[in-house]
């Protein structure tokens, strides 16, 4: 399903965001303009209205003092003097005309349509004329006179439709332009801002499609949330890649390590199947098949543990325990083995060293270290297990006064299935120390082989501070 850039853009979050912003902008500025327009027209209206009301009141006072004659005289005088022309008329309650003064620019129809509050115009009783100027409105005010006649005053004003036309035009131009500009800029900004999201989706898609574990999301240099997302995702991808590499290495090694015992097993089974063989020999071959199977299972279990620890996927069940307790248990387990070889085993511990560790796994590591020491210490020798708090955490040492480990082999002894020349004659899988290393490293610690002051080997386990319980 290929999607072109245009199609992708049409579905993009950026476009939707830009449209949303443009919509909000349009509604906001329309509201603002509407409010301004309304306020402005109201203000103008009020002013015109006030003018005619003042005029109507003034003329009504005149009428009250001198009747229609005085009013007419005043209007004539004003007309002769020039100035702003007002429409004035006085009506009786029956709607008949007492007096009217129509400015020269009024038209008849306009007068007919004038509102007559409280009166009903049934027919026109006067005529007016007006020049060809339709773009005008009028403002009008009425006053009830003492003799119950009704006086009206009116002026022509600029039609607001016409007056505000340039304003509306300007708004349409500015608003439309602003809208377009804000939409374009918004799209650009949103498109740029959502770039990391597209990069993440693209990378994820590429990994899904090709299985390329080396793929990383580009960018992530900034300080924003999206840059943080990109960085976190890259870290996650990196960790996954490490785990997958570790697991596949582990599988390779397992396959390699299992090949030899499987070959032996197959050989023994073939022997049992041979025609004309001695039944007793066949039974013995079958028995060794079972023994090989057990060895294989045992090897598999140990290798799985070692490999899991090396790949960093070994799960630890931490509990708080005195490291001395683990050492004591190991010494107790190997009591007879040590006695058998007349090796003196001594525990060196001055203070309790509580630690948060997987007691079963770390116990296994201590067992292996002791097992190793007992194997390589000559009869009548000495083995010391020392536990003490260290500057950064805790240290556990297994020292002996045996032949020690040659400098050249001190790294190699921790490799899986490594058997030094000196140990070929010894029973074992060559996994003991690699298991120790794997378990200790799973705890975040280190293990090193050095020379012991007693003259033999010293295997030193250093556990980090966070494995040490706060007492």
């Amino acid at each position: 399903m290929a999607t072109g850039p245009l199609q992708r853009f049409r579905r993009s979050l950026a476009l939707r965001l830009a449209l949303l912003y443009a919509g909000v902008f349009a509604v906001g500025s329309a509201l603002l303009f509407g409010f301004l327009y309304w306020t402005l027209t109201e203000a103008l209206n009020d002013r015109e209205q006030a003018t005619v009301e003042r005029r109507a009141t003034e003329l009504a006072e005149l009428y009250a003092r001198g009747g229609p004659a005085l009013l007419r005289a005043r209007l004539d005088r004003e007309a002769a003097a020039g100035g702003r022309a007002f429409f004035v008329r006085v009506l009786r309650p029956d709607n008949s005309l007492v007096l009217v003064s129509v400015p020269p620019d009024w038209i008849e129809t306009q007068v007919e349509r004038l509102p007559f509050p409280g009166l009903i115009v049934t027919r026109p009783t006067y005529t007016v004329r007006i020049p060809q100027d339709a773009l005008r409105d009028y403002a009008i005010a009425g006053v009830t006179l003492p003799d119950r006649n009704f006086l009206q005053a009116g002026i022509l004003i600029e039609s607001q439709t016409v007056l505000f036309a340039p304003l509306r035009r300007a708004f349409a131009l500015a608003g439309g332009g602003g809208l377009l500009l804000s939409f374009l800029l918004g799209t650009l900004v949103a498109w740029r801002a959502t770039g990391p999201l597209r990069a993440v989706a693209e990378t994820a898609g590429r990994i899904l499609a090709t299985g390329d574990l080396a793929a990383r999301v580009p960018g992530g240099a900034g300080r924003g949330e999206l840059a943080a997302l990109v960085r976190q995702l890259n870290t996650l991808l990196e960790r996954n890649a490490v785990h997958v590499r570790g697991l596949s290495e582990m599988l390779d090694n397992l396959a390699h390590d299992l090949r030899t015992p499987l070959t032996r097993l197959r050989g023994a089974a073939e022997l049992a199947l041979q025609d004309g063989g001695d039944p007793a020999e066949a039974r013995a071959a079958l028995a060794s098949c079972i023994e090989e199977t057990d060895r294989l299972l045992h090897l598999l279990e140990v290798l799985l543990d070692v490999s899991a620890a090396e790949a960093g996927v070994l799960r630890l069940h931490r509990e708080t325990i005195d490291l001395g307790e683990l050492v004591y248990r190991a010494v107790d387990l190997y009591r007879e083995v040590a006695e058998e070889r007349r090796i003196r085993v001594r525990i060196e511990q001055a203070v309790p060293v509580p630690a948060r560790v997987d007691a079963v796994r770390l116990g296994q590591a201590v067992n292996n270290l002791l097992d190793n020491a007992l194997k390589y210490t000559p009869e009548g020798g000495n083995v010391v297990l020392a536990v003490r708090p260290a500057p950064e955490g805790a240290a556990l040492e297994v020292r002996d006064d045996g032949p020690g480990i040659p400098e050249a082999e001190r790294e190699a002894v921790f490799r899986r299935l490594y058997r030094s020349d000196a140990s070929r004659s010894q029973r074992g899988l060559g996994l003991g120390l690699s298991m120790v290393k794997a378990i200790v490293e799973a705890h975040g610690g280190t293990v090193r082989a050095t020379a012991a002051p007693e003259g033999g080997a010293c295997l030193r386990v250093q556990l980090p501070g966070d494995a040490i319980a706060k007492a």
Partner: protein
Amino acid sequence: MRVLVVEDDAKIASFVTRGLKQAGYAVDHAPDGDTALALLDSTAYDAAIVDVMLPRLDGISLVKRARAARRELPVLFLSAKGSVEDRVRGLQAGGDDYLTKPFAFSELLARVQALIRRATAAPEATRLTAGDVSLDLVSRAVTCAGAPVDLQPREFALLAFLLRHAGRPVSKTMILEHVWDYSFDPQTNVVDVVMSRLRAKIDPDHRRIETVRGVGYVLRPSKG
């Protein structure tokens, strides 16, 4: 003695059933938890061998339900998971013993026999005897062919364990569990060492304690 085998793998079920029948037990087989519950409701069993991973109703839930409804029934769990936590979970759920696949049939048999005996037998005698070997649990005196033998504590515990299972093979794992109280295999040769010391004291020519290849050891009840 009637034993219920709850196991969904036909091959394993078949060899366990056949082996138990040869050993003289009446055996019923249930391929899943529901069938097993039905059988447990209608029949009285002396022991049950239950696979932890079963279709639909799993072994641990099955045993919990059976335990909730009924009297004591010795249960041995079978599982492919060998970790310590699984073992603890199985035992907490009401299992009396726990065996990891793959297992030796002889070990399964020995464990089932031990379960049934623990559930049915009268309180253990303070004196264990097999052939000319005799051990007093109270006075801790051991005699072999009439002569007193001086045993170290672990040698004593090992001999007592062998005497309790006289005539039946026991595995190194069982010995580690019962003599050393280790619930996982510490992968050492300590059993061999203590065994050879015990043999040196009561059985220098390997007539009484026999090594069964691929299985473990068996204490022969009589000489020869």
